[in-house]
């Protein structure tokens, strides 16, 4: 792996860090905003898992598509989704990416081929097979990526989809973000000691690779290699081991049931901090980084302010869009 890392150049690394930091500060500022304003709308924060979203999306081309789940802010932003539209959506505003009808769990930005997210565990996986099917049918040469968690992986529809992906040779990459938890439950509560994800995945004829989901470079390099194959109809699954920093949902933390993923260890392994060290090591100065960060922080603060002031959808909007 080590030597492959040189394939990712300085500019790319800086760009990646910026994206990771954007996701991080967006989430932090939104969490603070929710707390301050007592917002109890359902929300799932992505903090801790940024290396996965950015590592994967950096391996994609513009025409490639992404689908996602309940924890989709990071995926949306990594794919280039519009920040303001996302924040507006979270605050239920008319200019949100789903015009306030969807909220945090229903992000979409088809202009960048982020083609939708659904909070029903695993549902995006069969849907993403369909996207891959269409890409293949129209010989577009593009791929579809779907993000799912370790909990969602236990839904039978995922196994069915793995079979479809292999059978129809779909240009599909499944990104399994294994943060060791489904809500609070730990893997050992849900799987026997002999459970072997790789065997299951490859048993259906889908390639499998494991990556360090707290390490941008590891994720993105492995993803790039895989995607070349995916593009020619060899579907794959990449399992990214990572940690979710905050509570399962809501703008809070939850430390009681932590095992491997203690606050200390999460801090030690934090992907954003790690990436920051990487670019510091490239010779970028601390002050340069801070300036960049400040810029991003401000952009996000502006977006939140913008969203706060943006108008709510009108009553009439309730009744439209039942049908297309």
């Amino acid at each position, binding site marked *: 792996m080590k030597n492959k890392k040189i394939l990712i150049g300085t500019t790319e690394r800086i760009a990646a860090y910026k994206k990771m930091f954007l996701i991080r500060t967006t989430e932090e500022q939104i969490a603070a905003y929710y707390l301050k304003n007592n917002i109890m709308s359902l929300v799932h924060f992505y903090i801790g898992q940024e290396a996965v979203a950015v590592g994967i999306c950096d391996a994609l081309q513009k025409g490639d598509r992404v689908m996602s789940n309940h924890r989709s802010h990071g995926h949306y932003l990594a794919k280039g989704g519009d920040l303001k539209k996302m924040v507006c959506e979270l605050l239920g505003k008319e200019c949100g990416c*789903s015009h306030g009808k969807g909220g945090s769990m229903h992000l979409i930005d088809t202009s960048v081929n982020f083609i939708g997210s659904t909070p*029903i565990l695993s*549902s995006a996986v*069969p849907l993403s*097979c369909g996207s891959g099917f*269409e890409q293949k*049918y129209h010989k577009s040469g593009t791929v579809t990526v779907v993000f799912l968690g370790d909990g969602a992986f236990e839904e039978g529809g995922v196994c069915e989809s793995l079979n479809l992906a292999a059978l129809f040779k779909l240009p599909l990459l499944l990104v399994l973000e294994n943060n060791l938890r489904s809500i609070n439950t730990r893997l050992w509560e849900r799987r026997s000691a002999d459970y072997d994800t790789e065997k299951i995945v490859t048993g259906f004829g889908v390639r499998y690779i494991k990556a360090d989901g707290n390490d941008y470079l590891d994720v993105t390099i492995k993803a790039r290699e895989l995607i070349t194959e995916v593009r020619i109809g060899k579907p794959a699954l990449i399992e990214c081991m990572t940690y979710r920093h905050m509570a399962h949902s809501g703008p809070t933390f939850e430390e009681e049931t932590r095992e491997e993923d203690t606050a200390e260890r999460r801090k030690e392994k934090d992907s954003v901090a790690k990436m920051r060290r990487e670019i510091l090591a490239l010779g970028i100065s601390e002050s340069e980084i801070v300036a960049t960060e400040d810029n991003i922080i401000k952009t996000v603060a502006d977006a939140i302010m913008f969203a706060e002031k943006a108008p709510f959808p009108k009553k009439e909007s309730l009744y439209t*869009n039942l049908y297309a």
Partner: protein
Amino acid sequence: MPNRIIKYTEAIKEATDQIMEVDQDVIVMGLEVSYKNGADGTTAGLKEKYPYRIIETPQSENAITGMAIGAAITGLRPIVHHGRIEFALFAADQIFTQAAKWNYMFGGEHPVPIVFRINIGRQWGQGPQHTQALYSLFGNALGLKVVIPSTPYMAKGLLISAVRDKNPVVILESRWLFSLRQDVPTGLYNEPLDKAVVVKKGTDLTIVSYGDGLITAYEALKLIRDHVDVELIDLVSINPVDYETILKSVKKTGRLITVDTTNHAFSIGTDVIADIAKQKLLYLKNSPVSLSCPNVPVPTSTALTKYYYPTKIDIANAALRLMDKPTIKRKLTFEELHLLPNLIIKKF
């Protein structure tokens, strides 16, 4: 255009074939759709003509249905076939929570042009787990359009409209009607997905039904032709229900019978009757009457199913009773009770 008499299943196949010819993005997915008598003949022979567009599938209703929806979202126009509603239930999430809600939940401009062809209902020896219809689920589900073709003509026209629609359309095909024959136009034509059809005009009373029940009612009319002037309405769509057409008729006749081919709680007839009841200043000559099946699952023995579904005699007698006329006594034969009706239907 010249017409010729074809079967219900042939009408479906013809619609599929013709729409596939003109739209390269139409594909068909389902179990056995690529086989000789594919999907009870409704896809017979199409695999040879469209080798990459007739897609055989594993036994994975959930993922197959989801894959089709995903393809619809991204630009194809899939037709998914499920041989029984009980099999389609494995894909309940994809149909009711994903496809149905997709456009609304993203605030519009996110069409899901997909057709779900789902076979339902009565058939000899299919029993409690192969004969449900779940109309109430489909009628209540927001975001779906749901139609029930009662004849070969409707089967063809509704399927064509469904494929051309931008929304998820469910077609509930009653297996009981698969042998019906009718003069069907040879070319492409649309039947509206949201309009009830007045099958026969009349002044005495209104009968509202759909699918297999509509055909039974149609047969019942022949028995009472000289005694009651019935207005017969084919509901066609149960989501949305065309209340306007029904209301107009009931305003005229003042009497209403609904015929359901499932149990009565939360049935289609119930929905129709409630709508009439809520009308202000509409005075009926008699309380609405609902004919439906008993409050139990469909058993398997023909000794029991013969009492299960409302027959043409039941419907005829309900109409006669409502008009205070003497009722008919006649026993149906085994064939009438248990074999698919092998009728030729005139154009409504």
